[in-house]
C-alpha cells in the first residue's frame, strides 16, 4: 500500500476525487431518505405519530402537507415512511398507494392505479379490468368490507394533491375522505401540495370530510442555519474509506464556510430563495466547476491540481445560477438585430409602451442610418424583415394577437419582451459593439 502510494499518490488522490464527486452528486440529485432533515422536526413528529396511529391502532386520518416547491414535502413523507417501516410488525401490516396528480390525470386512471397497487382481485398481472363505474364500486366495496381492528391499513399518498381537486366532481377525493371518516378500512390520506389555498379548492362536502389537519413546511430557517446546511451537505460521511482525505476535505469545507466571499455568495443565494432544492442546484453547479472543469482536465495530466473546492468555484457557480437568460440571448444577436432592438426601445420610450409594428421599427432604424450616413448599416428592407422575424422566433418580441394568414406582416403589432435595463446591460457586455450604436442606445436624440 505504502509503496503504491509513493509510486503514484496523485493517481490515488484522483480516485478519491471521483469518489467524492459520486457521493455528493448522489446526495444532491436523489432525494434519498437517508439524508438529514432540516428544521422540520416538529412537522416530522406530527406526521410520524399520525402514521403510527394508523398502522398500530387502525385510526383513519387525513392530512395535507403544504409547502412551497422544494421545501422537502416528499422528503418528509419518505423519511416518515422509512421510519414507520422500521417499526416492528408494521411493514407487513400496511399497504401503500402512491398517486401523483400529474400522472393520474383523472379519476378513472387513478382508480385503476389504486386497484393495481392494492393488488385486488380484478388485477391480473398488471392490468385492471372493468369499466370505470365497475372499478369504482368494486374499490368502494373492497374498502367498505374492512373495519378498524381487522383490516390492513392503507396509506394513500397523493402527490400534487391540488390537481386531484380538479377532477370531475372530486369523486376520488370525496370517496377517499369519506372512507377516512367512516368505520371502514382504516386509511390515512396524505396530500402533498404547494398551494396555500388548497382548502378553497375542495368542494364543501369534500372539505367537510377532510380533517383539516395541515402540516406546513415553510423553509423557516435563518441564514446561519442555511450556512450549516451548506456545510453538512458538502461534508463527507464518516464511512468514507479514506479517512485522511475525508478529514482534509471536511476541514476545507469548514474553512470554506467561514470564508467571507463564500458567505456573501450564499447570502445572495439565500436572499433569492430559501429552499433547499435551489441550494442543491447551486451545489451541483459547484461540483461541476470543481470536478469537470477543474479536475477532468487535470486527470489527463495525472496530477489533480484541484483536489478541494475553492471559493472561486462557488462564485462561478453562483454566477451561472443568477445569470439573466434573456441578456445572454441578446449577446448572441447580430448588430442589425441589436439595432432593431434599440429602435424598439426608443419607440417604447416615445409611445409609452404602446405596441409597434415592423414599419415603425424600420422607419426608426432608417432615421438612425440616415443620420449617421453609414453605408455599413444600410440593409435592404427584406433583410431587416428577416432580422425582425428572427427576433420574433427568439421570443424577444411578441405579436399582440395571433397571426392571421392574410394580415400583412409589416403592420402586425408587436411588443418588446425586454426591459430597458436588460438592453443596456446587454449592450455593455456586447462584444465589439460599434460606438455609434451604443451612443444611439443611450439616447435617441443623440444627433442633436
Amino acid at each position: 500500500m505504502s509503496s503504491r502510494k509513493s509510486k503514484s499518490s496523485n493517481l490515488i488522490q484522483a480516485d478519491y476525487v471521483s469518489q467524492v464527486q459520486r457521493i455528493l452528486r448522489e446526495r444532491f440529485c436523489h432525494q434519498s431518505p437517508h439524508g438529514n432533515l432540516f428544521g422540520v422536526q416538529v412537522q416530522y413528529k406530527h406526521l410520524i405519530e399520525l402514521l403510527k396511529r394508523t398502522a398500530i391502532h387502525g385510526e383513519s386520518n387525513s392530512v395535507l402537507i403544504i409547502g412551497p416547491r422544494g421545501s422537502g414535502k416528499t422528503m418528509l413523507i419518505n423519511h416518515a415512511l422509512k421510519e414507520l417501516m422500521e417499526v416492528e410488525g408494521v411493514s407487513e401490516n400496511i399497504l401503500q398507494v402512491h398517486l401523483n396528480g400529474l400522472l393520474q390525470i383523472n379519476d378513472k386512471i387513478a382508480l385503476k392505479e389504486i386497484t393495481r397497487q392494492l393488488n385486488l382481485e380484478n388485477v391480473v398481472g398488471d392490468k385492471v379490468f372493468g369499466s370505470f363505474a365497475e372499478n369504482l364500486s368494486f374499490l368502494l366495496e373492497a374498502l367498505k368490507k374492512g373495519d378498524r381492528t381487522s383490516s390492513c391499513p392503507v396509506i394513500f399518498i397523493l402527490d400534487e394533491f391540488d390537481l386531484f381537486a380538479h377532477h370531475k366532481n372530486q369523486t376520488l377525493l370525496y370517496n377517499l375522505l369519506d372512507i377516512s371518516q367512516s368505520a371502514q378500512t382504516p386509511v390515512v390520506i396524505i396530500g402533498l401540495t404547494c398551494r396555500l389555498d388548497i382548502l378553497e379548492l375542495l368542494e364543501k362536502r369534500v372539505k367537510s370530510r377532510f380533517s383539516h389537519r395541515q402540516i406546513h413546511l415553510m423553509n423557516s430557517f435563518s441564514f446561519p442555519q442555511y450556512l450549516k446546511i451548506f456545510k453538512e451537505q458538502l461534508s463527507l460521511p464518516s464511512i468514507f474509506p479514506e479517512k485522511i482525505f475525508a478529514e482534509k476535505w471536511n476541514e476545507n469545507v469548514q474553512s470554506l464556510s467561514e470564508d467571507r466571499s463564500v458567505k456573501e455568495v450564499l447570502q445572495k443565494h439565500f436572499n433569492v430563495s430559501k429552499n433547499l432544492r435551489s441550494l442543491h442546484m447551486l451545489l451541483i453547479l459547484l461540483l461541476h466547476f470543481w470536478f469537470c472543469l477543474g479536475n477532468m482536465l487535470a486527470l489527463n495530466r495525472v496530477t489533480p491540481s484541484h483536489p478541494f473546492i475553492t471559493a472561486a468555484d462557488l462564485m462561478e457557480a453562483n454566477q451561472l445560477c443568477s445569470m439573466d437568460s434573456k441578456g445572454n440571448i441578446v449577446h448572441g444577436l447580430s448588430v442589425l438585430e441589436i439595432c432593431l432592438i434599440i429602435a424598439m426601445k426608443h419607440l417604447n420610450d416615445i409611445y409609452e409602451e404602446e405596441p409597434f409594428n415592423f414599419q415603425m421599427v424600420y422607419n426608426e432604424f432608417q432615421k438612425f442610418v440616415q443620420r449617421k450616413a453609414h453605408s455599413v448599416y444600410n440593409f435592404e428592407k427584406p433583410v431587416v424583415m428577416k432580422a425582425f422575424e428572427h427576433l420574433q422566433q427568439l421570443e424577444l418580441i411578441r405579436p399582440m394577437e395571433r397571426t392571421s394568414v392574410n394580415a400583412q406582416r409589416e403592420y402586425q403589432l408587436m411588443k418588446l419582451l425586454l426591459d430597458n435595463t436588460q438592453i443596456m446591460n446587454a449592450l455593455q457586455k456586447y462584444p465589439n459593439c460599434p460606438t455609434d450604436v451604443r451612443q444611439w442606445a443611450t439616447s435617441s436624440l443623440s444627433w442633436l
Partner: protein
Amino acid sequence: MAYCSARLRTRQTCSWVGRPLLDQKLHYQTYKEISVKREGYSTEIHIQVGQFVLIEGDDDENPYIAKVVELFEDASELYSKKRARVQWFIRFCEVPICKQHLLDRKPDTQEIFWYDNPTCDNNISVETIIGCVRVVALAPDEVMPIDLKNEKTFFVKLSWNKKKFKPLPPEVLAQLDKLQEDNHRYQKSMEAKTKSAESPSWTTTEHAVKRIESRHSTSKSRHTASHPVTPRARKRLELSNLGFPRTPNTRISQATSCASLDSPGRMKRKVAFSEIMSPSKRSLPDGSQTSSPALKTPEKTRDIQHSCTKDARKTSPDHGMILRTRVPALKATETSEERILTPTSRGRKSSVVPSVILKPEYIKRREGKEPEVRDEAPSTSRIRRKSSILTLNRIRQQLRFLGNSKSDQDDEEFLPAAEISDSDSEEEEASTTPLPRRTPNSMSRNLRSSMKSSLQTPSKTPKKTPQPRTPRDATPQIRSRNLPAQEPTNMLEEARLRLHVSAVPESLPCREQEFQDIYNFVESKLLDHTGGCMYISGVPGTGKTATVHEVICCLQQAAQANEVPPFQYIEVNGMKLTEPHQVYVQILQKLTGKRATANHAAELLAKRFRTQASSQETTVVLVDELDLLWTQKQDVMYNLFDWPTHKGARLVVLTIANTMDLPERIMMNRVSSRLGLTRMCFQPYTHSQLQQILLSRLRHVKAFEDDAVQLAARKVAALSGDARRCLDICRRATEICEFSCQKPGCPGLVTTAHLLEAIDEMFSSSYITAIKNSSILEQSFLRAILAEFRRSGLEEATFQQVYIQHVALCRMEGLPYPTMSETMAVCSRLGACRLLLVEPSRNDVLLRVRLNISQDDVLYALKEE
C-alpha cells in the same frame, strides 16, 4: 335458458280442455286442463291443475315458478278471462339480497323455495304461463340428485316466508312429492299409455309404507318414489274413490290425478259456505280423503273410509304419519276437531284462499265469542282480493293474541298445525312457533361475501361451466392485518377513539325532532303500503345521513319485531357514482343482485316499479348527494321521483342534498312537482348542541376540561356548525395534549390552551406565515407589487411594471441587482403558492400579476419584522 327465449315474442292461444266444472258458489267455471298453443309452433302444451309451470316474469332468464292450483274462467277480468290460481315458488335470486344471507349455505342453482306469503297475488292470467317444469321436493338433509340435474327440474327443500327459510312442512313435502311423481309419470306416460289400471293393491300399500318410512328417515333414497307402477295405481284408486268421470283419454286421466288435490279445496269452500253445518258433517269430506282414524268419525265417513283405508294411507302417507304422532296428545273434542281440520288444510295446502277461510273457523271454534268472524268467514270464500285477506289476517292475528293468553296448553298442542299452516301466512308463523331450526340472523362477513359470490358464479352447475371469470364477480377485500390493532391504552387515546367521526354513537343527540319526523314519514309509508319522496337538506356535517341511517336501523328492528312490514333498504350516493345514470345500475344490483347496463337497468326498474307487483315488499331508497344526479334532461331525478307515484310501486325515496332550495334551483317543474313538498332542513348545530354531542361521546372518559369542550363547541358553531370539524378539533387537541405532556408520563386533561392551539392550527390562514418565511427577494417583490398597485391605482399589474418597481426597491435597500430571470423565478414561486395569481408564464414579462390576499395582510406580514 333456452326455453324462455323461445316464448319471447310469440303469441299464445289458450283453450280449455275438458268439461268445465261449474262452481255454483263462485260463479265461475273451473277446469282441469288447458292447452296452450303458441303461434308458429306446432306443439301444444297441456297444463293441468297441479302441475308446475314457468310464469313470465320481470326477468327473461329466470321466469317465475309456480304450481297451478286451479284453472278457471273469470268473466270479471277484462282482458284475459282465462285465469289460474297458483302457488308460487321463488328462486334464490328473487329473495331480497339483504335476506339472502339467512340461508346459511350455498343454494343450489336449481333450488327453489316454497313461497309462503298469503298476501302475494296468486291469481294470474293463463297467458303468462310459459311452460311446464318439473319440481322435486327434497327433505332438508337430502342431497340434490345429480341425475336429475337438467334444466327443467327444480328442487324444493325449504320454504321462504319473507322472513326466514324453513324446512318444508311435512305435508307440503308429501304433497309435492306426490305431485312430482305425477309429473314424472306424466312425462313418461306420454309415450307409454296407461294399460294396467289394476295393479295389485299390496304393492301400493307396501310402497306407501315405504314412503312413510322414507319420510321419517329422510336419508332414504328417493327412487322408490319414482316407481312407475305405483302412482298409476294410486291414481286409479283415487279416481274410484272420488268418483270422477273416467275417460279413455290419457291426458284426462292424468289430470284427474291432480284433481284429487283440487277437490278438497272446493269441498272446503262448500264447508265454509255452509257455516252452520255441524262439525261432524264437515269432517265428512275431510275424512274421505285423510281418513284420520283416531277420531270419532261419523258413520258416513267411516263407510268410505272403510272401503279405502289402504288408498287413504297411500294417498296421503304423511297424514297418517302426523296423525300417528299426534294421537297420544288427543284430549278433547275441541282439539279433535282441529285435528280433523288440520290435515284438510294440509291437503289443500296449495290453494291459499280456502286456508284463510279455514283459519277463522278454527279460531271461532276456539274462541266462540267473536261473532264478527262468523259473519265474515263465509263471505271471504268469495273474496280474492288481497286487501281483504290482509285485513282478515290482522283480525286473525288479534284473535290469536287473545287466544294465546287463554290457554297455553292448547297452544302448545296446536303448534305443529300452526307451523304447517303458516306457510300461508307469515304473521301467524312469527307470532306462534319457535322454529325448529332458526337461521342465524347475523352471519360472519366472510360467509356473506362468499355467498354473494356463489350466487353470481354458480360453481356446481354442470351446464353453466363456471369459467374463471376474473374481475366482476370476485369478492373485493383489503387483506386483513397480521398484527391485531392495538386498543387504546390511556384516557386520551380512548377519547380520541370516541371522538373519531367514524365512531358510531349509541344515539344521535340533538336530532331527535328530525329523527322523529323521518321515522314517522317512512313508517307511515310502510304501514300504508304506499310510496313517497322526501327531501332532506342541510350543510355538510349536520348529521343528515347519520340520522337517516339511524331511522332505517330502528325501522329494521321494528320490522324484525313485526311492528312494521318488512322492507328493503337501498342506499346510493351521488358522489360514489361515475355518472348519474349509474344510479340505476346500483339500485338494480342492490335490489336484485343483477348486473345490467344503465339503460337496461332503467328499463327493468321502471318495469318493476310501474307494474303492479304486490309480491314485493316496500323498498326504501336513500339517495345521498342528490345534486350530483343532475343531468341535462333530468331524467334520472324524474324517474326516481316518478316511480313512487305509481300505484303498486311501494317505493319510498329519501333524498339528501346540501342546498335548501335545490328543487327550485336546478329542477324542472315536472321533477320538483314529483318530489313533493315533504322537505326537511337540518339546521347547523348550535354551540350548545355541539357541546352536547361532544359530552355524549365523552361521557365516561374524563379527558377534557369542561371549558375546553365549550370552547370547541362555540368556536365551531361560530364558524360552520359542522360536527365533523368539532370532533376533529378535539381529536387534534388530545394529540397536542399528549405531545406536550409526554414528560410527566401520565397525560393530563386537555385544556383550553391545547384546544386553542388545535383551532389555530386548523383554521388560521397560512398566508401570513408563508410571507413571513419567504426569502428576502420574494418579500421585496411583494412590496414592489404593492408599490405598483399604489402607483397605478389598479389591483393588477404586468410583470414588467412590477419588475421596474422591484429593481428600484432593491437599489434602495442595498440589495444586489435582481436579474429578470431571478425575479421571474420569484414570481412563479409566489404564484405556485397562490400568494399571487399569475397568468401562464408564456406571456413572459407581459404576464399580469394580482395578489391573492388583501394588501393589508401583505403589509401586516411584511411589517412584522
